[in-house]
C-alpha cells in the first residue's frame, strides 16, 4: 500500500465507525464494495491493529448470533477528533488537487 492510500484508508475506517460499531469482515465488505481497498482484504488487519494501538479505535470480542465470535471496533473520543480534523483537511486537499489536475488537462 502506498502511504497516501494507507493514510486515507485509515480515515475511511474511522468514518465507517462514525455511526455505529462494526466487526472487521463488515469493514472489509464496505471498503471492497466501493473499491477503496485496492489490495488484498487481509491488509486491513495490520491497519486495524495500528489504529487500536494509537487508541483511535477500541475493540471488543462479542458472540455472534450464529458462528464464531467477532471482534467489534468502535471509535474512541480521540478517533472521533481525528476523523473530524481529517474531514476538513480532506475537503481542502481534494479541491486543491482537483484544481491543479484539471488545470493541467485544459
Amino acid at each position: 500500500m502506498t502511504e497516501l492510500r494507507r493514510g486515507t484508508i485509515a480515515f475511511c475506517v474511522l468514518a465507517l465507525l462514525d455511526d455505529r460499531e462494526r466487526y472487521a469482515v463488515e469493514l472489509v465488505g464496505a471498503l471492497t464494495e466501493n473499491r477503496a481497498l485496492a489490495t488484498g482484504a487481509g491488509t486491513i488487519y495490520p491497519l486495524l491493529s495500528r489504529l487500536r494501538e494509537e487508541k483511535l479505535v477500541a475493540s471488543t470480542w462479542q458472540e455472534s448470533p450464529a458462528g464464531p465470535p467477532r471482534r467489534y471496533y468502535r471509535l474512541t473520543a480521540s478517533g472521533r477528533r481525528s476523523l473530524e480534523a481529517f474531514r476538513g483537511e480532506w475537503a481542502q486537499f481534494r479541491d486543491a488537487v482537483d484544481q491543479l489536475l484539471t488545470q493541467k488537462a485544459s
Partner: protein
Amino acid sequence: MPTPDTLIADYLDRLRQASADLPAGSRAELMQDIGAHLAEKVDATASEVQVRRVLDELGAPEEIAAEAADQSGTRSSAPAAGGLAYDVATVLVLLLGGFVIPLLGWIAGVVLLWNGPRWNARHKWAGTLIWPGAIILALVLLTADHRTSGRLGVVVVTGVAAIMVGLVVGFVYLLRAARSHR
C-alpha cells in the same frame, strides 16, 4: 485434491512463516485476526472453490505480513503526536504523584517512565531512583540533625532545599532526555 481444511491450514502456515520477523505480540494478533476472518467466511459446508475465493480476497499471506511490517515501521519511526504530553505527564506523576496519592502515585510514575518510548535504561533508572535517593538523603540529614541539635532549623532548611533542587534537576534531566529522542 486439497480439502478446504488443508487449503486454510496451508494459508495460515504461509502467513506464520511470512510474519516470522514481526514482534511476537503483533504476529499473534495478526494470526488471530486472520483466523477469525476465515472462521467467519468459511463454514463447514464450504466447497473448495468458495474457500479459494475467500483466500484470494484476503490476498497473499506475504502481502499481509509485509503490510504488518510496514505498519509497525510507521509506528516506530513516527512517534505519536502526544509525545510531549506523555513525557511531561510522566515526569510530573513520577515526581509529584506521591504527594497526591502516597506511594501509589509514585509507582504510577515509575510505570509510565518505564513504558516511555523516549528514555533509555540509564534515564529510566535515574528517574526511578530520584525519590528513593531524596528520601535516603533526608534520613541522613535527620540523623545528622540529632548530632547538631543546636542548629536544627538550618539542617532542615538545607535538607528541604537539597530535595527541591534534586527534583527540579530530575525534572529537567528527564524532559531533555526525552526531547532528544523526539
